[in-house]
Structure formats: C-alpha cells, structure tokens
C-alpha cells in the first residue's frame, strides 16, 4: 500500500505557489552564485586579454620572425651548404602557421637600406629615405595625394623638402656608391612619426619610425615600394639582400583564456622548432645551417601572463562574493524551508500530533522540493550564462568555464535539497516543547552578537593589515577579503539591533495612535506588533540595501579619489614632455600651459622641496585645480604670483604648514620670497614633500639677478606641456604639434591601473550582489505581506463590513510596507556609510600619489532607491489589497455549513 503522503510529494508544491516560488528563487540564486564565479572569471579573462592585446597589439602578441639575407638561394661556402631564398622560407612559414587557430595571415616586410633621394629635374639638397615593402602598406598610411602605380611613395616631409609631387621622378642612391636609379613617384603619404604610437600595424617598426627621445630627430622616413620594385631598386643599387620580417598577428575577436593559452603553447613550440636546426622546421628553413641569424619575437606569453595576473587579482574577491551570494541563497533556501512549515502549519501540527518524526518530515520536504530545485538550478545556470554574456566585462564565457559552472551547480543541487529538508525538520522539531526547552537558553542570546564580533575581527584585520594585503608578483594589489566581509557583518549585526530597537518607538507611537485616521492607525499597530519574520525581513532588506550602498560608496569615493590623484599626478588631462627651450605651441586647440618641475630643487625652512615653475598666464585655464585646496580662486592666485615689487619672488607653497623663513634656496641662490598662499595641494606635487610654485619668467629674472644660472634649465628638471580637454583629441593634437612632446602621459592611463580595476570590479560585483539580494528581500517582504493578508481574510471581510474603505486598507498596507522598506533603507544606508567611512582611509590603491582618499556618499542613489522603494510600497500595498479583495469571503466564512 503506497503511502499517499509520499506519493503526492513530488508535485505537491504546485499547490503552494508562494512556497514553490521561494524554493525556485533560492535554488536559482544558489545556482547563479555558484555558476557566476567561473563564468565571470572567464569573461574577465577575455576582457583582460582584449585589453592586454590592445596594449601589446595583435602584431606584438602574434609571431614575428626576422632575418636578414639574400633574395634568392645560393650555395654556401662548402659542399652541401645550399641556402634557400626568402620566398621559399616564406612559403614554409606560411604552411607551418597556416592552421594555427587565432593566428592571422602573415604580413611580410622587406626593409632595405637607407638611400639618398634627390630630384631629377632641379637642384635640391638630397634627402634620405629607407626602402620598404610591407604587405598592405598603402592601406595603413595616410595618403596625402597620388594614385597606386608602379612607382614609389614618399613621405610628405621628404616631398616638402624636395618639392616633389606625384608623377615626378626621383633618383635614389646608396651612400658613397656611384649607382643611381630613377624611379617614379606614385604618391605622397603623411610621415609616420607625426602620428602617435597607436597603430598596431606599425608596432614592429616603431624603432624605425619614431625618435629615440625628444632630443633626437626622427629616423629616415620610408620609401614605399612594391615587392618587385623593392627588389629591382635594391638590385639596381648593387645589393641582393634585405631584412625580412614575417608577422603573424593574433586574430579572432574576444580571445578566451583557453584559446590564448593554446596559442601561446603553439607559438612556444614553434619557437623551439625554429630555433633548433635539427628539428624538421629548422632543417627545412635552414638546410645547411646557413644564415641562421634569425630573430623570433612574440609577446603572447606576456599577454597571457598579464591577463592571468589581472584575473587572479579579481578571482579571490569574485570567489568570495560568489560564496557570499551562495550564503544569501542558502539563507533564502533556509527561509523557504521554514516557510514550508509556516505556510502549512495546520498540516505540520497534525502530522506532529500523529507522531511523525522530524526525519520523515525532512525527507518529505526534500522530496517535495526536488523538482522545483532542479528547475531553479537549471534556470539559475541559464541566468548566469545570460547575465555574464550580457553584463560580463568580456562578454560570454568559454566552454571550459561553462563546464566548470555546470559542475559547481550540480554539486549545489543536492545541498539545496538537503538544506530544505534539514530546515523543515528543525522547524518541525520546534513544535516539541522538549526540543524547544533544550535550545531555550540559546534562543535568549541575541544573534546579532555573532556578526558584530566578526565585524570587530574584520575591522581589526583591516586596521592591522590594510585593505590591500595581497600584492601579486606584478604588483597588482587586491582588495582584502576582510574589506568585503566587514560591511556584511557590520551591517547585519547593527541592522538586526536597529530593527529590534525600532519596536520601542513604534510601541510609543502605538500608544499615541488613537487619534490617527484608520490607515496610519492600522499600519502603526501592525508595525508595532510585527512578528519575528517581519523583523527578520527588514533586517535582510537593510543588509542587502546596505551592502549595495556600501559598494557604491566605496566605488564612487574611489573614483573621486583616483580622478583627483590622476589629474594631480599628470597636472591636467594630458601632459607631454618637451625641452625647456621649447614653448607651448601657438594656436593649440585646447588650453595648454608650460611647466617646469625641479625635483628636490629647492630648500625651504631647511627642508627639501620640489619646485614648479609655471606660466601664470595660461596655468589657470589648462591645469587641474580643485577649489577646495586654497582659500582664493586660482585666477586670483595667478595674479598674485605675477605681481612683484621686484624685491621678493611671489610663491605658492603646497602641502606645508606655517613657514618661519622668507627665503628659498634655489639653484645655489637664496631668493627672498613672499608666500602668496599655503594650499593643501597643487598639481604635480609628490606625497610627503612640499611643492613651491612660482612664475617661470620671474624665477629666471630673480636667478639672473642673483647671478646664478637658470635653475629651471638644469639636468633633472622636467618641462612639460599640460593640456586640458578630451583625452584622445588632446593627445592627438599634442602629438601633431610642432613641439612633438614625448612621451605623452594621460590621466586616463594613470587611472587604468590593474589595482584600481580590481577594486572597482570587485565592488561592482558586490553592488550587483547587494542589488540582487535587495530585490529578493523586497520581493520577500511583498510576498510576506500578501501571504499575511490572505491568511487574514476574515478580519478583512469583517473590517470592510464595519466600514473600512478599500482605499484606507490599501493605504495602510502601503504605509506598512513603505515604512518597513524605508526603515530598512535608512538603517542600511546609515550603517553602510559608517562602515565605508571606517575603512575608506585604507582603500587607496595609489597610496604614493596625493591626496588622501576622498569620501563621496552616494546621496543621489540613496534618494533614487528611496523613491523606488516608495513606489514598490504603493504597488505592494495595491497587490496585497487585491489579494484580499479577490478572496471568496463566503467560502472562507463557510466553516460549518
């Protein structure tokens, strides 16, 4: 005889939609948390690879083989020493690397000698250019004028000097060689060194394009020819060899880590083979070991290593947050288990009275939950895949990550079922006074003590070990686990206490609620008499919303801090290094100013200081300045720095307190100074060392008067152009300017720091987790309210007959829900901001750059959340009221008929 209780169990939850939903939600969240770690890590790896590939370029990461040698094969110096020509080598290399996944078609470069170039028709000074053939070259230069033909392309700089136009003929020659060859000019292109070093295609030839430093002129520009013309010209000049370069760039959009690792392995293998003359490939390329001066280069290993380091920087926090997500899911599942008993209280009481054991109740609950858990788990995995595809830093995860995610999810499935059964059994056991008495003392201890003790431990760890305790080999600092755990414990503990304490004012309010209208009267009484479940839900809401606010506070504070630090470090949005003798370019499309900084260049009050000479006329418009640094406006300060009686040099001192001296020792001279203002900070200042700022022209004048050489034009001084505006545009404009600043540094580059990325990504994840948990808690509260209203149909029906208006009831529910949600938000937000302020001093991934971490509370976000919650309260009240209105009152009242 089949036990009907068990026989009906597998599909039973279909009769209890609320319960079914909570089990589904819990298992979905558990699967989501479990799967998100490998999937997110994979997506992050893809993003890191893309970022590193962009930096290294697909050419740099791919394979580059370089060799110098003759065009054709030739016999060696002894018997059986035949060498093969570059075209045969080209064929072998293409065949060898043709089928390597994610490796593109080869780019062949023939680099010839630097030749003299002169016009044929008129007398001009000869210029120089370097013969070049490269696959697809004309598609990768800025063609100024001209058409494809059988001739060469010359750079506009050469064309300008020689007065060349397309169709002209030039004569090329090797230095100290009598041979001259004439060749037609097909076109003119823009000299490559004028453009910034941002074109991947030219990466391997940067050394032949750009000057070594600003003090050197650019190398000779290329004289671009077709492969056949290149050979004809070279041979015409009496040579039959060139430098060859075979480049196989990385291909494929969004390379995954397994793909990158496979490629790295294949290229390593290729390198080993190509370097070994006894290998098949080595032998084919160099049959008689002749001309083996081969160069091989690939940054794929660096790219993979760097991406792995980036990933390892976020992996620990991601796993931690995945565990935190799992904990939240476990809490939801545990609540579902408890809810299973509460929702079916009558059944549980009856089965208890009929002698059913907690073990069998647990088993029955597990059986009931099996199908919903399987469904929820599948949905969770699908949601994780979709979310990572949609929101992951690098898009979809790879197949291996998917397998790992599936494995993690499959392991969690039985755990969820077991947990549901366990909680149901424990809750069922509480019906027994004997069991309750056993745990009675434990029940009296407030649970908040546990998270508060853990919060204290976390805070102590943060204080003693810092917020970034793990420094990888690459210097990527990672947020400490405690930085994430601290707010969770802190908010959970205090939110629980606050929710309890809220009962007191509510009770006081209840005592004075007599005069209130019906809706607030009912809301106040319901809130004051809130049961444990409601308090728990408010605490859960506060924790989730608090976690969300905490993460947002840390991220926005960090963004503010990093923005300030990067701008302060660079001086403005972009800076470029120039010679002291150079001036700011005229007609520059963005605000630009020239500065010269002398590190430890001065002595003030017996203390070494940095010295910054500025152009006070253009500084205010072009430099980064925070109004909070000084008591006066920057324009006013600049005016002060310009005005002098001739006796004292007006200076501005940043990062120093009161001064006891009125002299600055600069370049060996003691210069009387007048401190215009002491500011908290100034652009370009270093941590822990004051910066003295003065007008450059006045400094030169005072130095001259003191009889010393210009202290700004000394070795060790850095002259920079600071420009303000959109980074890309300003960078291009600076690079194209006559001053040719080099290098060019942007504030964005400073901000693009793996440590900062690790922190923002980690907290972004925490924010998502908080948001998800908050959503779940809010939905839980709304469902709780609905379920409660359904169980109170009789009192509602009677109240309606007694004169309670539908609107009043709706309003009372909205007020109740709104108060709970807003209280949760207020508690969560206050605690989150307090927690963030406690730890923010330690959250400084650029600790060596001033200023100290800045704080920014996400006020707008909190108000937006409050507005959203108020809306949810209105809708929730409406739904709960509708649930009550839809009940069949007659059916409910028909107890004995």
């Amino acid at each position, binding site marked *: 005889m089949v036990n009907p209780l068990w026989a009906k169990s597998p599909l039973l939850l279909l009769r209890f939609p609320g319960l079914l939903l909570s089990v589904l939600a819990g298992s979905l969240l558990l699967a989501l948390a479990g799967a998100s770690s490998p999937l997110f890590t994979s997506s992050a790896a893809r993003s890191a690879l893309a970022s590193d590939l962009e930096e290294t370029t697909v050419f740099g990461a791919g394979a580059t083989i370089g060799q110098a040698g003759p065009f054709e094969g030739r016999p060696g110096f002894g018997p059986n020493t035949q060498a093969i020509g570059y075209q045969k080598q080209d064929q072998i290399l293409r065949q060898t690397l043709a089928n390597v996944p994610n490796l593109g078609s080869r780019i062949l470069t023939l680099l010839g000698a630097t030749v003299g170039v002169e016009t044929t028709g008129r007398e001009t000074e000869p210029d120089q250019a370097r013969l070049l053939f490269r696959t697809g070259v004309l598609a990768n230069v800025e063609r100024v004028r001209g058409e494809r033909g059988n001739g060469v392309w010359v750079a506009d700089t050469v064309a300008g000097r020689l007065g060349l136009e397309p169709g002209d003929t030039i004569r090329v020659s090797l230095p100290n060689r009598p041979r001259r060859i004439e060749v037609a000019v097909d076109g003119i292109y823009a000299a490559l060194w004028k453009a910034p070093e941002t074109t991947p295609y030219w990466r391997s030839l940067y050394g032949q394009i750009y000057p070594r430093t600003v003090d050197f002129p650019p190398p000779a520009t290329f004289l671009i020819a077709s492969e056949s013309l290149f050979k004809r010209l070279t041979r015409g000049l009496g040579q039959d060899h060139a430098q060859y370069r075979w480049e196989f760039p990385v291909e494929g959009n969004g390379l995954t880590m397994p793909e990158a690792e496979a490629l790295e392995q294949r290229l390593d293998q290729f390198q080993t083979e190509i370097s070994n003359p006894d290998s098949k490939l080595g032998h084919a390329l160099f049959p008689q070991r002749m001309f083996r001066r081969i160069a091989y280069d690939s940054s794929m290993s660096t790219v993979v290593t760097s991406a792995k380091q980036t990933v390892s920087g976020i992996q620990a926090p991601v796993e931690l947050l995945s565990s935190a997500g799992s904990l939240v899911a476990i809490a939801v599942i545990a609540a579902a288990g408890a809810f299973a008993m509460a929702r079916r209280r009558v059944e549980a009481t009856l089965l208890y009275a009929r002698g059913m054991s907690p073990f069998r109740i647990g088993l029955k609950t597990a059986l009931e939950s099996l199908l919903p858990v399987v469904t929820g788990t599948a949905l969770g995995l699908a949601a994780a895949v979709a979310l990572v595809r949609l929101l992951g830093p690098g898009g979809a995860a790879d197949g291996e990550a998917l397998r790992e995610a599936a494995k993690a999810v499959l392991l969690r499935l039985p755990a969820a079922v077991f947990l549901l059964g366990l909680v149901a059994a424990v809750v069922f056991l509480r019906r027994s006074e004997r069991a309750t008495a056993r745990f009675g003392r434990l029940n009296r201890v407030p649970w908040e003590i546990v998270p508060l003790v853990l919060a204290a431990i976390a805070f102590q760890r943060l204080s003693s070990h810092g917020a970034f305790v793990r420094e990888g080999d690459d210097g990527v600092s990672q947020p400490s686990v405690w930085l994430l755990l601290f707010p969770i414990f802190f908010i959970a503990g205090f939110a629980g206490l606050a929710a309890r304490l809220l009962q007191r004012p509510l009770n006081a309010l209840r005592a004075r609620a007599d005069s209130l209208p019906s809706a607030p009267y*009912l809301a106040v009484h319901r809130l004051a*008499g809130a049961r444990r479940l409601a308090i728990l839900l408010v605490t859960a809401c506060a924790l989730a919303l608090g976690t969300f606010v905490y993460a947002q506070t840390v991220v926005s504070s960090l963004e503010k801090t990093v923005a300030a630090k990067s701008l302060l470090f660079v001086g403005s949005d972009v800076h470029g290094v120039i010679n002291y003798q150079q001036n700011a370019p005229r007609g520059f499309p963005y605000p630009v100013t020239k500065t010269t900084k002398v590190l430890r260049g001065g002595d003030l009050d017996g203390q070494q200081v940095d010295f910054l000479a500025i152009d006070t006329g253009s500084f205010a418009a072009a430099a980064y300045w925070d109004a909070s640094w000084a008591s006066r406006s920057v324009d006013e300060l600049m005016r002060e720095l310009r005005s002098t009686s001739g006796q004292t040099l007006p200076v501005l001192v940043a990062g120093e307190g009161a001064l006891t001296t009125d002299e600055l020792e600069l370049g060996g001279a003691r210069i009387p100074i007048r401190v215009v203002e002491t500011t908290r900070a100034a652009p370009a200042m270093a941590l822990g060392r004051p910066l003295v700022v003065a007008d450059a022209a006045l400094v030169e004048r005072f130095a001259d008067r003191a009889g010393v050489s210009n202290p700004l034009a000394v070795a060790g001084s850095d002259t920079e152009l600071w420009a303000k505006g959109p980074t890309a545009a300003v960078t291009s404009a600076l690079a194209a300017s006559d001053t040719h600043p080099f290098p060019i540094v942007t504030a964005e580059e400073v901000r693009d720091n793996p440590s900062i990325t690790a922190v923002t990504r980690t907290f972004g994840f925490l924010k998502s987790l908080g948001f998800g948990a908050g959503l779940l808690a809010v939905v839980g509260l709304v469902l709780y309210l609905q379920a409660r209203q359904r169980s109170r149909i009789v*009192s509602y029906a009677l109240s309606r007959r*007694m004169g309670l208006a539908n609107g009043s009831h709706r309003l009372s529910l909205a007020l109740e829900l709104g108060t709970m949600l807003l209280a949760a938000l207020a508690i969560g937000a206050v605690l989150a901001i307090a927690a963030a302020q406690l730890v923010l001093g330690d959250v400084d991934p650029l600790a060596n750059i001033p200023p100290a971490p800045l704080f920014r509370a996400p006020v707008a976000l909190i108000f937006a959340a409050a507005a959203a919650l108020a809306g949810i309260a209105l809708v929730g009240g409406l739904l709960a009221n509708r649930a009550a209105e839809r009940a069949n009152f007659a059916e409910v009242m028909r107890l004995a008929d």
Partner: protein
Amino acid sequence: MPTERPVAACQALVKTYATASEQVQALRGVDLSFRRGALAAVVGASGSGKSSLLRLLAGLDLPTSGKVLVNGLSLAAMSPRRLRAVRSSTVGFVFQRPSDNFVPYLTVDEHLRLAARAAKRADGPGAEELLDALGIAHRRDHLPEELSGGEQQRAAFAQVLLAGPAIVVADEPTAELDSRSAEDLLAMIRGLSEHGVAFVIATHDPGVTRMADDVVELDHGRVKRDSLGAQQGILIKTPKAGPVTPGDSVAEVSGLTKTYRRGPEGVHALDQVSLRLEPGRMIGLMGRSGSGKTTLLNVLAGWERADAGSVVWLGDREARLAERRWHEIAVLPQKFGLIEELTVRENIEYPARLHGSLESVRKWVEKLLGALGLEELERRAPSETSVGQQQRTALARALVLRPRLLLADEPSGHQDATWARGVFGCLRAAAADGTACLVATHNEEVSAYFDEVVRMANGRVEQGLEGSPKGANVRRSISG
C-alpha cells in the same frame, strides 16, 4: 464498560505559558485519572485550562511540573521515538477546528489509509464500518475542503479511531455539529468506549456531559469536581422575551435560492427561503450542518449572491449591495476575524473607530467588557486569550455600534454553560435595544432565548415557525 484501571492519569500537573505580556498559569496542580472504556467530559469556563490539559494528555506539550501517565508510563520520561509512537497509535487527538484534522491535499480515503498504517489493534472497526457508522461513506473520495464542518468532524474521528488508540482526546468535538450529528457521534463514541477505548472530551455541550461516565470541571486551572457521574442538563433560565415593535422590517428576504457545486454534485444551499427580520426580535436559525444556515447569513452579510430571490434592506427595494449602510449590520461569524495586532479592547472599539464615533461609545465598551468578562483581558492580544474569550470579544465588537441587524453564527459555540447564558443575555439585551438578531445555532438548549425559531434542512425552511417557550409574543414572520 468502564473499568477502574486507569489508562491515563495526571499527577500534580502544572502548566504555565509565557505570553508577550505575562505568565499565564493554565493548570495549577491537577490530579486526575481516566478510566479505560470510560467517557470523561472536561468542562469549565473558557480559559479554565481544558485545552491545555488535553494537549498534555496527548503528549503534544510538556508539563511545567507534575506528570502525565499513559498506560502507567510518564510521557515526560519517554524517548522522543516512544513519545511519537504514543501519539501515533496510543493517544488519538481530535483538534477543535474540524479542518485542522486534515492534510488539505489528501482525500478522506487517503487519510484513513494513513491511519490504518499506524493501527496496532486488529480488533477495532474497519474503515468501511466507521464511515458507515458516521454517515460519511459517500464522502470517501472527497477532499476535506469539499466536506461540511460536521462531516469533517466525523471524518476526523474516523481516522483517529482507525488507528486503534487506547485513549481519544478531543477538544469540543460537537461544537461545530448540529444536534443530530452530535448525537450520532456521541452514540458511536459510547459504542467504542464499551470496546475499551477511553475518551477524554473537553466540551461545553450538555449532551456530552449527560452521556459522560465522568465529568471533570476545571476552574482557573484547578479541578473543581471530579468523577461526579453523569451530570444533569444545564439549566438555562428562560429569558424575558424582548419587546416586540411591530412595524417596518430591517430586512426582508424572499424566495432566496442558491445552488453551488461541491465536488461533482450540485448542492441546494438555499431553496426558496423567505424571512422577515424586525427590530427587537431575535430569530433562531436552527438545523443540521449543511442545512443552509451559514449561506443565508452570508447572503444577508453581502458576501454571497443568491441565484434568485431578493433581500430588501430597510424597505428600500432598489438599494444595491454597495449602498447598504453596512455599519448598521453587525456580523459574528464562526471565524471571529479579530485583528492580531490590536488588543481585546482595541478590537472591540475598532468598528466605532472606523465609524468615527469612538468617543461616544467609550462607556458602552466598558459595559460590554464587564458584561462579557473581558475586563482583565482588555490589554491582551487575542492570541493570548482562550477561544471562548475570543468569541466573546467578537460579540462585543459586533454590538459596539448598537447595530440595526446582528447576524450571529453559533455565538455560544465555544462557551461553557455559564457564559452561554452570558452571551445570550447580551444578545437579548441588544434585541431589547431594538436590534434585529438572526442567530444560527444547532444548540437546542438555547432555543428558549428566541422569539421565533426557523428550522432549516437541505436549504429549505423545514418548519415555518415555532413560538418562544412563553408563546406570548410569537408572530408569524416567516414563510417558505
């Protein structure tokens, strides 16, 4: 036949509950023994400790001190496994609310199969026999929600008895039954007790106490009388009939018909019912479970629409449901619908608060609290009071606005004899004040309180009119 051998006993039994506001001593040193094959009735006022005693006997709760012995063994000393075995097959517990005795998704037959699995005795009656004896064999394949309250109660007994317990503990099993159903149930209990099963029944029903071998009266957690033998019926003073004020009716019901489906069958809940409710008159609506009493009350309360017929409210034939002055109609249903977050006093004041007349009823609330014995409980939450006290709170709430019409469903169902008198005294007072009262009940003992009695069966008014015992103020006011 009862034997002197006790099947269960209590020794110095004390039970204290901690509520949010205070410690409630439910039992204060109870010594009792229950004989094998005997029917013991536990009586006493609401809150006297009856339910607590029953839960302790069934092994559902633990005594604060003292002992409960079943078959000579202390329940407190038993292992959890042994205690579960006792609950499963030695002690059968029947909950007060009939629906609480069922797993909602199992049919009656499935419940009986479950009970049969736990059965240890082979000599007891079989499922068929029990269902036949209880008159619910035709309900075998129905879900509990498809059964009436009376049928649920009988099916609950069937499943408990099928497990072959030595002792059956039941909390007011006849409270929801009509007199004929109650008689059938008691006859069956009597028969089974002769087979050696001991019954301990908490009750306010004089029918049960009359049949009981032993009667235990609890008063504030102490035994007042023990084993007194069968008690004579509780005497209820015949009240003065309320003044009759001929004139306009408060409501006039004519030709009401209502049919609904219960499982595969169509049930005629109301069949051409006509009735006139006049100010100052109290009409008793009597009949078995399922006779249509509650449906009629539901239609009058506006919670259910009749398929045919009309209800004319205060002479206004055109008045629609939504236009009725609902605050002038008070309802006291079997489910009290008290608001958990409000105290007893706040619940009573609630209609006046909604009506905006709270200040004007303060003194009246005091009087109601006093008349219904609720003064000491006024600050308690409803859940901290007994079911009987909750029912009196609901009655006070119904009366607080001095309604034109009071619809009451079994208003004394959870009251002992003394408070049953108190409840009907209040109802009579309301009638004397001009309220038209329609009171559904199956308690024949209280028929003396009514000005008129309407008997219903199968949705029809079976017997047109019975006069009050005095017969002086009877008027013909019903037909159909």
